[in-house]
């Protein structure tokens, strides 16, 4: 049977829905918890008191060596998480979460490079001033016209999805 050449549905690429982005991020966090978090879990449980915030803080203040070890482990987790986002977004334009939610990362200048992808995920560097992005990024996401996080504005990238016009 001959194939029919039907006209394609008109599409439009626009900012991805916030709920889709949030869900994609949650999926990525679950994956990172399994892949990166689990190897470090034993280290944290044996080096931190299984108690409240105050007791933990007291313990770390009294044990600077343990505090250094915890900081180093946290730093490694942050860098590995950043690498997950940077590698996948620069190579595929999507992380697993984004693939499942059918959203993508675009760069203003065309193809997204590794450095731009890394800059999008700077909030995984758990030191000042990058730590501020945990507050600023969601605020920018909600209140900017194109729903762009601050990190996205800096890295000249945006998260998009393809809408079909009917």
């Amino acid at each position: 049977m001959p194939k029919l050449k039907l006209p394609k549905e008109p599409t439009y690429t626009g900012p991805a829905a916030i709920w889709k982005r949030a869900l994609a991020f949650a999926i990525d966090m679950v994956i990172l918890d399994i892949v990166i978090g689990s190897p470090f879990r034993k280290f944290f449980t044996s080096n931190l008191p299984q108690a409240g915030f105050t007791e933990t803080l007291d313990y770390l203040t009294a044990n600077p060596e343990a505090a250094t070890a915890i900081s180093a482990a946290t730093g490694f987790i942050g860098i590995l998480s950043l690498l997950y986002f940077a590698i996948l977004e620069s190579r595929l334009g999507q992380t697993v979460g984004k693939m499942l939610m059918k959203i993508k990362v675009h760069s203003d200048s065309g193809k997204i490079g590794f450095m731009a992808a890394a800059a999008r995920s700077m909030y995984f560097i758990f030191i000042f001033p990058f730590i501020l992005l945990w507050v600023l990024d969601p605020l920018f996401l909600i209140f900017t016209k194109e729903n762009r996080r601050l990190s996205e504005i800096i890295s000249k990238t945006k998260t998009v999805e393809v809408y079909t016009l009917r």
Partner: protein
Amino acid sequence: MEKEEKSKWKTVIWVLLSLLIAAYVLSSLISVMLGEVEQYGNVAVIPIKGIILTGSSDGVFSSTIADSSDIVGYIEEASETPGIAAIILEIDSPGGAPVASDEIATALQKSNKTSVALIREIGTSGAYWIASATDHIVANRMSLTGSIGVIGSYLDFSGFINDWNISYERLVGGKYKDAGTPLRSLSDDERAMFQKKIDLLHQEFKDIVMKNRKMSQSQINNIAEGEFYLGSEAKGLGLIDEIGGKDEAIRYIEENLNITAKTVRYEHKPGLIEVLSGIINQRSYYIGKGMADANIGMVR
């Protein structure tokens, strides 16, 4: 299109696998590099296993020697750590040198932490000296403890070398300089001198136990004849405070300090190189021992 999708997932799997391996490597690396950092705990458990000496614990017999320098180091470290509330000495030792025992007991008394001695299989002589310096002693009902005495005995080979027509040429400055050589018998003077020193050490030992355990002179004289006691006997004699094990030691700490105890072991963790060199040393020792045994057999 399907091919492109497959290739995407292939990339994802590779990235995730690489990150998983990297996370395992980094977490292991950080644990190894910061191995000397104690894991979280508020009760330090310091094992005292083997003969207590001031010497190094390196070499073939390291597993049977408790080096006082190491143990004192652990006690000081635990004492200086604000998060540590108490120290448990896990004792499995027949004793050892008086100076080594005294060094550990002194470090313990200088510590501002609550201390408990947990005597397992054996905690006699010098090991009991150390245990007596703690706030509370727990032992199994079948543990061996006590043996408050001093021993200075040695083998006298003078008869043996006479039989082989070998003589001992005595060249000394000071009449006691070679006292105790196994190549000749002790003179009466020397025997008296040795006995005097042993008696002094014994008295010192008795005084320390008497003070630490708050005993009377007659009480200590009754139990300080070098006799060892089972845990069940020792409790009645006031040598220990409680029959039990680790649970009882922890309960004592929890009740007295009103804390939930989490133990953390203070002990030397050998690295891979140390483990391997230990195996090589042990192999060499047994090869040498085998050769020596074979030669002795031939002489016989």
